[in-house]
């Protein structure tokens, strides 16, 4: 994993949250406790570095639930590798944002 980029603790938390299934910006904010001014630029940076990718929800799905469509994020293969490296670097990361806490997102 020598090639995996070294992330800051905050960015690693956000990557961990997305990996744990918190796939929307606001849900990442809620689970990490970070402000919007930190979370959204960090997610853009992760997307620019191709560690996550974003996609807009289908309009028909949002219309059926009478809400606006949301942009959701997923880890890429490189993102998964980087997250693994970050977990080794920050051992408490998995406890801070645990996978089992994921609600039906």
């Amino acid at each position, binding site marked *: 994993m020598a090639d995996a980029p070294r992330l800051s603790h905050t960015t690693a938390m956000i990557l961990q949250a997305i990996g744990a299934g918190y796939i*929307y910006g606001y849900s990442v904010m809620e689970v990490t406790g970070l*402000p*919007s*001014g930190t979370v959204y630029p960090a997610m853009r*940076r992760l997307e620019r570095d191709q560690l996550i990718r974003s996609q807009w929800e289908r309009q028909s799905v949002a219309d059926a639930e009478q809400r*606006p469509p949301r*942009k959701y994020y997923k880890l890429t293969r490189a993102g998964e590798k980087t997250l693994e490296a970050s977990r080794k670097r920050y051992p408490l990361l998995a406890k801070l944002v645990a996978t089992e806490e994921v609600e039906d997102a």
Partner: protein
Amino acid sequence: MNPRRMKNAWLQYATLRVASLLGPSDQRAEWIEEWRSELWYVPQRRAMLFCMGAFRDAFWLRCNNTAPVKRSGIHLESPLSCLALLATLAAVSILIAMKIRVPDLPPGPFSSHRASDLAGACGMMLLFSALLLPGTLRVWRAPANRYPLSWAGRLRRGLFLAVKIALLQPIMLCGFIVELTMGQLGGFASLGFDAAVILALRWIIMDQQRRCPVCLRLLTSPVRIGTPSRTFLEWYGTESTCSRGHGLLHISEMSSGYSEKPQWLRLDDSWSGLFAKDVGRRT
């Protein structure tokens, strides 16, 4: 979203709209859509705090925008467009100057705003500019030219400078009248006005220096020449090119026998192949 929430959402939408101005224009629509859709899920009590983060996000997007930068709408490269911009600003300034009422003004050209008096006021502004010119002319270094321009070329260049200075007067007059209406600021407003006049005059003269003496277009593609540590029989500074291929302007950063003045090197017709109509223009 419930009706009460929608009623209160205008402030958050307005905040997002203002924040979006920080971001690049080509991504603005999607950016706003993303933030609005996320805002829908944020509880009302936290909505405003949530929206404040949009400023940082938009600023990040601006700083990290990889899309090629589009040219701004203001093109000052050609002399006509430069004069057109100044003329527009002058016309707007005259309109503003005629609308503003200046209280308790002593009799004189500035006391009323009839069009006939504005000309006199502009004349006074010209005199004021002339008083400031000695300080401004320090930036003026007429280029040395091995091949002197024709009298028609020199006349055109002089006229261009004169028209620019003339068009500046109504703009400065408008600034002066605005300064009078801000009487309570006293010396600060006056100081600011004087500084603005000096800066405007310096811009006029520096703009003149950066133009090709033949076609009066702004010189492009500045390139660094030489190094400061090797000045024996050499020079160092900046070389700019006329996009129409009329010549090169060498501006030295250190005064020497060769480079006391900017050197204009005229290119003859053999160079014209390198400067086809669109080659060398800024994109």
